């Protein structure tokens, strides 16, 4: 890369899972390579937006907390998404707004207070060598991330930050309406799919009227929901491409919503697909949290998504 950039951050404590994520890896899914990218597009996009980075800039996805970083030079940062009890130089860090990060001071994430995944963006963006066109970190595939090998952050890692891109106009913050309370009632918008009519008995009623509990079997590949057993006439399909948010139902009748690191093809019948924003919302749920599925028409889902993205254009 010809562009000048330097070390910007040092990892002094890794925590359970911190990953570099740009918008994702596209154009290679026919080779079995998944998309990666931020599990919560909304939090990730706002963190970048606040520090003046363009759509697609790499930010850190911090799951659960525990991460500590020291600035190697003066930076501008913003944390959006989950409240993981972050402190900057020992003081509570206000979320959804920019802050100055002085050289030698420490940013520390603690534990989930509200939501599961926080996004840390710095002005200029994190810099890493793209792999298959993207720096999105997919641990399972060994692709992307700060080292190109799909590793999560470890103590002692050094992260590069691009020059410039910072805003000189004081603190910027996201409007109140853009800051979700992830603990509140969760209604996940779902676009019904082709097998919706194959769910039998009370299956269809239960899918959209039962309260579903987020299982602890949840990661960036998928989130299992537990509740009444859904029955489907189809046990399995010939494997076919599966999109982000697809809600598949294996023979045990418990749905799994597939997220960014899902396998590219699969063979379970599907209720449909969560909208991109619903998939993002689910990614902020902690195990045990209750969610409901709500069928929505495509037109409305598309209008919601376009409204969301329009904030980040231009």
């Amino acid at each position, binding site marked *: 890369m010809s562009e000048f950039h330097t070390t910007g951050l040092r990892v002094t404590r890794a925590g359970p899972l911190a990953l570099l994520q740009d918008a994702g890896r*596209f154009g290679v*899914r026919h*080779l079995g390579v998944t998309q990666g990218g931020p599990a919560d597009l909304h939090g990730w996009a706002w963190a970048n937006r606040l520090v003046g980075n363009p759509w697609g800039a790499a930010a850190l996805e911090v799951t659960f907390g525990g991460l500590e970083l020291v600035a190697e030079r003066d930076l501008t940062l913003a944390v959006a998404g989950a409240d993981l009890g972050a402190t900057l130089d020992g003081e509570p860090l206000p979320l959804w707004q920019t802050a100055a990060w002085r050289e030698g001071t420490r940013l520390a994430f603690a534990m989930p207070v509200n939501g599961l995944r926080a996004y840390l963006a710095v002005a200029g963006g994190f810099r890493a060598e793209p792999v298959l066109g993207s720096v999105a970190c997919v641990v399972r595939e060994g692709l992307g991330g700060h080292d190109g090998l799909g590793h999560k952050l470890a103590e002692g890692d050094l992260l590069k930050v691009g020059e410039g891109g910072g805003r000189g106009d004081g603190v910027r913050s996201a409007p109140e309406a853009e800051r979700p309370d992830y603990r509140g009632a969760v209604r996940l918008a779902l676009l019904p*799919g082709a097998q919706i*009519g194959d769910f039998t008995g009370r299956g269809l009623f239960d899918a959209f009227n039962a309260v579903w509990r987020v299982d602890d079997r949840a990661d960036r590949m998928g989130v299992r929901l537990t509740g009444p057993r859904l029955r489907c006439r189809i046990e399995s399909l010939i494997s076919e491409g599966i*999109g982000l948010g697809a809600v598949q139902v294996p023979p045990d009748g418990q749905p799994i919503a597939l997220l960014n690191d899902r396998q590219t093809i699969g063979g379970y019948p599907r209720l449909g697909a969560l*909208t991109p924003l619903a998939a993002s919302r689910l990614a902020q749920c902690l195990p045990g949290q209750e969610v409901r599925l709500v069928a929505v028409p495509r037109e409305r889902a598309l209008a919601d998504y376009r409204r969301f993205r329009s904030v980040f254009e231009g």
Partner: protein
Amino acid sequence: MTGQVTARLPRLEAAGLDAWLVRLFDAIDEANLAWITALTRRCEAAFGAELVDLVPSYTTLLVIFDPLRLDPELAHRRLEGVLAGLVPDAAAEGGEIRELPTWYDPSVGPELARVAERANMSIAAVAECHSQAVYRVFALGFAPGFAFMGLLDPRLAAPRLDTPRQRVPAGSVAVAGRQTAAYPAVTPGGWNLIGRTSARLFDREREGFSLLRLGDRVRFVPVDRSTFERQGGDTTPMDEEGGR
């Protein structure tokens, strides 16, 4: 597929905000491939920069587009147009055969004996049977560069392991049902391992990254241990891999 088999193929199925699933067939068949590769190519041309990804598989093609630039209804109409003029890909019927040098040995293929016993064959006969056929790549998935190939001789069609391994070594050649595959990298896996290939199946430095593509013809070529080693194959036995 109950409840849908009567609906006419091909058809377009909703697959989220940014995608349509083109369902062309309802059963696995080698003859599907010429149509699926043709459709994939036609979609690349028809969608251009509005295309995000194409995921072909045994009987379907998932077409993912950018919903900010292309209205889903317009994408639907465009796909109907593409389907209306679709002709099978003539190139898919010929073409070179990709060869995967394979060392069939119980030390790297712990299920070789099990597959042989099931088939009532010797281990050497299993290797011969597996390596004589020319397979087609029906799908890529599970992991980068992992190609599902078929159709395997029914005598070798052993069911998957009851408990998948946590760690299958890279290069492992495997069978499950009527399919065969080679693991491009270390992953968990539940297929029967019968040997190991020295071929690099997925290489981030190579143009196109994956050695195998949908529709490719593939043959496993038996090699002895010294040839396998000379070609860079990893002879570390499974029990030393801690592969269980």
